[in-house]
């Protein structure tokens, strides 16, 4: 068991999402930074899709009621265990009674706490993710609150963790080549033109050339962007159609909305572009007020990025497995 010690209003249980139910209107949900979840789960010896806690309101704390392997990945949330500073992207062992605390990260938006065995949460429609809109999944379909106790799954690898912890080079560093750093504080996000792009004529070019700011009316459902409004050359209303996270829709006001993890499954606003999936975690880690610019991409580039990420994840999986097996052999 773990007990939530301290929490803000929007921290939820998430896994990699509830895919396969969009055709009945159910959003995929899932972590805003799925790469951090995959790496965290690999570090603690879980299946990549095990349920974790997504922390996006700080400070956050939890108390371990049993010996537990855990890792904090994603945002640099300055993790402390009983006041002792830890490094993120590293698996540690906690003893019963110890308290893990996370502070507001200086740059990024969301931290993930993964635990050995995963959070033992009922699977609803193929996933343990919280659907906040639907009010189901995760921990009773709602955010975590102080006093919540969550059971943990069985941890078969608990004895295999190195005493000093097991760390990994975080994706932003390991994949610097494929995820270019912000330029003058402006995050580059790759996207492909979508269905109604050409209806925006000159404003279509303005979409790519200007710097957008993530407005305060942004959440796990979508990011509203503020900037110089863009409008199509004619008033259009689409027949409702399926959408996916990453779609950039332009409502009549002219300020784009990027659908995120809790994206609607259908929409009717004109679509100017779609963020490539591999860049979504970077948006998921971008905070309100952050500035970004869309960079026109291609399917070929999207594939290349996906392959680089897959190689990195494979490498983490193999290396951490090797270290653990070697330690076990020596024990």
């Amino acid at each position, binding site marked *: 068991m773990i007990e939530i010690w301290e929490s803000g209003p929007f921290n939820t249980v998430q896994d990699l999402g509830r895919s396969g139910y969009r055709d009945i209107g159910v959003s995929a949900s899932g972590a805003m930074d799925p790469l951090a979840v995959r790496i965290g789960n690999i570090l603690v010896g879980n299946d990549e899709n095990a349920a974790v806690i997504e922390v996006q309101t700080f400070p956050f704390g939890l108390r371990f009621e049993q010996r537990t392997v855990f890792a904090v990945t994603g945002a640099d949330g300055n993790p402390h265990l009983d006041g002792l500073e830890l490094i993120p992207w590293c698996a540690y062992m906690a003893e019963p009674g110890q308290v893990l605390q996370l502070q507001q990260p200086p740059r990024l938006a969301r931290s993930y706490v993964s635990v050995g065995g995963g959070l033992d949460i009922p699977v609803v*429609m193929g996933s343990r993710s919280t659907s906040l809109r639907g009010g189901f999944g995760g921990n009773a379909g709602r955010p975590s609150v102080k006093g919540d106790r969550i059971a943990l799954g069985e941890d078969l690898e608990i004895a295999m963790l190195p005493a000093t912890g097991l760390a990994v080079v975080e994706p932003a560093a390991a994949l610097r080549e494929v995820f270019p750093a912000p330029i003058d504080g402006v995050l580059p996000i790759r996207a492909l033109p979508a269905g109604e792009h050409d209806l925006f004529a000159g404003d279509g070019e303005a979409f790519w050339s200007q710097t957008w700011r993530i407005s305060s009316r942004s959440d796990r459902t979508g990011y509203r962007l503020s900037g110089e409004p863009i409008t199509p050359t004619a008033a259009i209303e689409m027949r409702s159609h399926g959408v996916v996270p990453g779609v950039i829709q332009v409502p009549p006001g002219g300020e784009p909305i990027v659908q995120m993890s809790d994206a*609607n499954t259908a929409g009717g606003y004109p679509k100017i572009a779609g963020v490539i999936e591999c860049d979504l975690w970077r948006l998921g880690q971008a905070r309100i007020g952050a500035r970004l610019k869309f960079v026109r991409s291609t399917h070929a580039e999207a594939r290349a990025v996906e392959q680089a990420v897959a190689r990195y994840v494979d490498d983490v999986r193999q290396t951490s497995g090797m270290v653990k097996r070697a330690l076990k052999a020596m024990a």
Partner: protein
Amino acid sequence: MIATTTRHASRHASQREIVPATQSRARVSSIGARSFLLEAPGEFDLIAQRRIWALSQTVKGWTDLAENIPGMTNLLVIFKETPEDPDAVVTRLLEAWENAQSIDLNGKTIEIPVTYGGEHATDLPALCDLSGLSDREVVRIHHEATYRVFALGSAPGFGYLHGLDPRIYMPRKTVPSLKMPKGCVTIGGMQTGVAMLTGPNGWNSIGFASLQMFDPTSLTPAMMAPGDTVRFLPARIEL
């Protein structure tokens, strides 16, 4: 891209509906790298939707496909991986569309009791203004029609219903209602439906239904399915 006048649609509908460039060719566009949207050409009708249902059946057999989501005379397909050759995907989808035979789904009939008017019918006066009809006529026209569930989406279990009388067409709002209650009976363009969640909603509310239509713990969580027939029964009219 041209806007065409559909046979029955009102003046407003012809201005607002976006229709592919030709009446004969479907249009395929992408959303991000893995998802492709095929939009049927021509009119917003059951004939086009039956072919979309057929196309949906066809693509279910594609082993490289992760999900397919039928919309209103359109289909979104999500591949497991970003395709190496997106043009080949477009060709494959268009060929499947050309070969899609019309099918009809044998749906059930769902009757939904509705309180028309009253506190939840926040947009009924505006609809009367737009249509030039009295509130009584709007309500009568809405409940006398028989609707088909074309597709589900937007919220868990939300069914997009086709069969709205063009006389009570009303475009989505420019500024959505911020907290429209779950159960509102709404009109959005040439579509109608029942709000499944309380929240922002750009459709226009004319009544309220309290029927429970989604249960996440059920083996079939959504009451409605594509192909179903829906009748609205006026349980109460408060005008």
